[in-house]
């Protein structure tokens, strides 16, 4: 970097022509995922805020008399599994940066399975709650199913993304140094885990408080 | 606040400015700038203060924006500098002072409006429907529609609710508006300082006939009001002519009775307005038409021609029955 003084007396830096040896900095894809996470966070913030608003605006008990408090066993296991799934995801990111694809592939498959387990457990939970609580019985039910359902949908999309990564790794298009897409999906996966905790706290735990 | 004489002068000036030579300050204009109650008074005064400041700012900015255009051929040289101090003073400090004063005005007005000057001793329930106003006087059997009588100079508590969608209660000459919300009661108060009839209208879009959901606030001297309320609390007067008698039987035996209540008869519906003293009201159909024989006949026969889409279906009555019913209703004063 050479420093040049202009006739007006200001110093300025003349950029060297040419390019950096290796790419540095965050990619456009990385930023796109960050912003996508921002917008989805705002969506869930609106949904969870609506939950608490409707709870406290009315004067009755919560859950309303017609409903019972949600059962905790199945959702707790599901949430724990999803959150723990961040570990293999992190392993996959590191592994993808190094040569060799086996560790990355295995970690991605394990991650995917935690996501599948979460969705399955959510369906089991729904079967337990129905028909005591339904989508259209009252606002409590509407909130319960739509908030958890929205999150479950996001997890399902996450599972698909990881599945694509698994296929990509099998076809040698990523891994072995090529880790960009894995990093980006990982960010989304961690976001799903944080969301799971927020949804769990709101929908399952707060009725007990 | 301003003395009455000064206030009237200001109001006259305001009338001229705002209503123009052509329209004039018509007594039937529901003007927020022609206040007849303390709440509207407060707002009108605040308006003139705000208007003066706003006009000054607009004139200043217009001059500052237009003059450089007009004088453009005179300036040959661009003036440099980054202008931070200019923007700081004119853009932050001066407006900041104006805005703080505005906030002080806002907070003071909110506080003044919050409760009446004296405690009110009458409460009126107003329930909004699509597209009419149900009015009930607490502590009395009086139930009416689309016309609210109050004693002059007395604060009255209002409890606003809706039976269906959101409406808004607005009588510009008397008070700023307040919404009618489902499953909630909005409490507010009003007071009218001059006797007279003041027009109000629903101010929250409520569907097809939102445009025809007006009402009247009638302020009367205390004695007159007490008489009125007493009469409203009574059951419907007995019919005095044969025609009216026939009208009563038509009413109770036809579909009228399924939707309307006439206290003292078997008509006990609660879909439409209470008609017990409908004959004494100034207007019909939530202010849409005057209350006279011809208009009422037209309304009863086919209200859809006046308020298309309203919930009252056309009534298939023979001309004689129609005349009888309207005769009866007109007698319910």
């Amino acid at each position, binding site marked *: 970097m050479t420093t040049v003084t202009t006739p007006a007396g200001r110093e300025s830096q003349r950029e060297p022509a040419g390019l950096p040896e290796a790419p540095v900095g965050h990619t456009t894809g990385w930023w796109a995922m960050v912003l996508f996470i921002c917008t989805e966070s705002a969506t869930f913030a609106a949904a969870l805020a609506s939950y608490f608003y409707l709870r406290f605006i009315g004067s009755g008990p919560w859950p309303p008399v017609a409903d019972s408090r949600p059962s905790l066993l199945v959702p707790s296991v599901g949430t724990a599994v999803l959150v723990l799934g961040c570990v293999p995801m992190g392993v996959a990111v590191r592994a993808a940066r190094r040569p060799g694809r086996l560790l990355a592939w295995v970690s991605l498959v394990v991650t995917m399975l935690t996501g599948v387990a979460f969705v399955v457990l959510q369906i089991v939970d729904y079967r337990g709650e129905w028909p005591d609580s339904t989508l259209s019985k009252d*606002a409590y039910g509407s909130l319960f199913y739509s908030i958890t359902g929205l999150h479950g949908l996001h997890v399902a999309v996450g599972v698909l993304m990881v599945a694509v990564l698994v296929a990509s790794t099998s076809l040698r298009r990523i891994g072995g140094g090529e880790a960009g897409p894995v990093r980006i999906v990982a960010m989304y996966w961690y976001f799903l885990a944080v969301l799971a905790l927020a949804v769990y706290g709101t929908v399952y735990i707060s009725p007990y408080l | 606040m301003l003395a009455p004489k000064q206030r009237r002068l200001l109001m006259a000036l305001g009338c001229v400015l705002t209503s123009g030579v052509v329209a004039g300050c018509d007594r039937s204009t529901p003007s927020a700038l022609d206040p007849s109650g303390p709440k509207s008074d407060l707002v009108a005064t605040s308006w003139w203060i705000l208007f003066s400041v706003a006009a000054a700012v607009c004139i200043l900015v217009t001059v500052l924006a237009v003059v450089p255009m007009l004088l453009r051929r005179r300036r040959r040289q661009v003036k440099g500098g980054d202008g931070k101090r200019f923007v700081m003073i004119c853009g932050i400090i001066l407006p900041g002072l104006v805005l703080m004063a505005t906030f002080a005005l806002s907070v003071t007005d909110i506080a003044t409006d919050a409760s009446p000057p004296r405690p009110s001793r009458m409460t009126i329930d107003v329930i909004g429907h699509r597209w009419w106003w149900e009015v009930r006087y607490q502590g009395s059997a009086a139930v009416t529609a689309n016309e609210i009588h109050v004693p002059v100079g007395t604060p009255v508590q209002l409890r606003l609710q809706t039976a269906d969608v959101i409406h808004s209660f607005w009588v510009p000459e008397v008070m700023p508006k307040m919404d009618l919300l489902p499953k909630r009661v909005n409490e507010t108060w009003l007071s009218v300082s001059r006797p007279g009839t003041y027009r109000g209208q629903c*101010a929250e879009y409520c569907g097809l006939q939102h445009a025809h959901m007006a009402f009247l606030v009638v302020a009367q001297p205390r004695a007159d009001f007490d008489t009125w309320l007493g009469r409203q609390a009574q059951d419907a007067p007995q019919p005095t002519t044969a025609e009216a008698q026939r009208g009563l039987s038509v009413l109770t035996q036809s579909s009228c009775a399924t939707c309307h209540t006439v206290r003292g008869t078997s008509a006990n519906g609660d879909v439409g307005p209470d008609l017990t003293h409908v004959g004494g009201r100034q207007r019909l159909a939530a202010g849409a038409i005057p209350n006279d024989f011809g208009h009422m006949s037209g309304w009863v026969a086919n209200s859809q021609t006046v308020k298309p889409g309203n919930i009252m279906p056309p009534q298939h009555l023979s001309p004689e029955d129609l005349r009888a019913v309207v005769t009866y209703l007109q007698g319910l004063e």
Partner: protein
Amino acid sequence: MPPTTQPTQPTTADARPRTSSLRGVLAERASAEAAVGEKLDELWEEEPGLIGFITTVNHKRIGRRYLVTASFFFVLAGVNALIMRTQLGSPDNKLVDPELYNQLFSLHGTAMIFFFATPMNSGFGNFVVPLMIGTRDMAFPRLNALSYWIFLFSGLFMFSSLPLGLAPDGGWFAYVPLTGDKYLPGLNLDFYTLGLLFLAVSSTVGAINLIVTIIKMRAPGMSLNRVPLFVWAILVQSFMLVFALPPLDTANAMLFMDRRFGTRFFVPSDGGDAILWQHLFWLFGHPDVYIIVLPAMGMISSVIPTFSGRPILAYPFVVLATIATGIISFGVWVHHMFAVGLSDVSLSFFAAATLTISLPAGIQMFAWLGTLWRGRIVLSTAMLYAVGFLVAFTLGGVTGVMFAVVPFDQQVTDSYFVVAHFHYVLFGGAVLPILAGLFYWWPKITGRMTNARAGLWSFGLVFGGFNLTFFPMHIAGLLGMPRRIYTYQPGLGWTVWNVLSTVGAFVLAAGLLLTLGLFVHSLVRGERAPDDPWGANTLEWATGSPPKDYNFPVIPTVHSGNPLWDGRTLPSMVEHRHDPGRTLTEEHKTLRTSELDSRVEAVMTMPEETALPLLVAVLLTSMFVALLVSAYVAAGIIAGFMAVAVTWWLWHRPEVEPG
């Protein structure tokens, strides 16, 4: 080799150099094109004809399409308004029945805000931003194409309801319980909820695209303190969209579910609440008005310095004002609900916040005014519209401040006074700047100049008509006329003001029609435009009129906030014309730079044209149509196809950089 023009003054960016060329091709550009133009042409040129039309990913073509399509929706929504004004031109008028009127006014508001104002700004953003920051395309060109197609199809989806007699009729803010299925059954409000959810996809990805472009693709040397104000405005607006759309989407999804699946979010008897809708809606709705106005103000910040011959006054304050407006706008939404019956504490808090937000606007206003006073003015049509904006927006702004006095708000909200207010800030604060921007960038977009005298007539009729239409509404409102009424009775003192407004509306329409004619005439017979007809100071004027597909033959190195006036940025294009790190003639590439200082980080390969965006848009449209007609299984299947298409899309990404 043509000599580079050196300005004879010292190299400072305080003012437009006297010797900057206003004719023909900029010497620096000519020199750079001579070195690498042909090679780049080959790489960046797109297919002609229908194939090219369907598959383009070029930001300039897409930007132009946004402008044309948004203008089309503007005309449709404007015709709605003309019919409304005609109906209100006399009391007890029977021109339209209440059902049609209610559809007209609801669609007018919805279309103007969602399908005209924001997309028009996107059009300018799309076209101008990559040029202004010195790069070759948007960060995600295929996503850019997708966001356009979705905008087009969602607009058609929404408007198709009108000829079917099923246009939304709940007002543009669609308050429940009116808009629940109990009181407004029928497809009207389903068009509304689905149409807006559909559009939101376009707006969200468009915003993300613009943010990433602005953060990661600025020319080397364009550090944050050198970014043009229009780009700052688009950046802030895009962040606002990212955070403001979600509450709206949540509300629309909840309303759709209430109407179709019997959920109870807004049903008070079953634990729901009608005011929840209002909170969610206005949490979006208030930032939305600044989403509309900020880019417009950014355009004014481009126009005024150019025609004053000097940089804007107090640039850092204007940047801070833009950011402050964006942030504070999320904290004032309750001022749309002052008549709902909330606590006095709430009222006072939001009154204070509402007053605060007018401070940044004041900062910008005086920066513009100060620039005018210190500059050497050249009057052009764009400048006329800019001055018109200054006057109109001030008037709208001061009535806005009045609304912070809560009891006054309670008198005039939901009356024609507020209709006057928001038309002054929306027409005055967005349409006038959009027209200024159109006249300003017209030569760059089309390569033609417009007729100055016709421009004068355009401004006169539009500005005069606009004021005649909306000023009387202040008075009608103060005289007690509520809004959203399809007719009114004679004898209330409202008639004369309505007549004036109606006359004004036709004058305004005539002015807009004249303006349209003026633009068409320019396209057909206008004088050819040079690179930089106005002697402006930002990078887009260092390209051709219209620019080549690749924008810059040599990516410039930026040395100041006024790159065309500082005497160093333009010569950098000549200096680096043989440097492959700036000409990037291998494949379809451009530079990725750092967020704050815009140092070069990497070279990115940009995608070629493809029909995938159109395919995904068509699939998404079918999905929304399926939802509309309650074909939920079909919608699910289509969603599956979309997942496949999107996977295919992301699979075939251009050469990904390791990271």
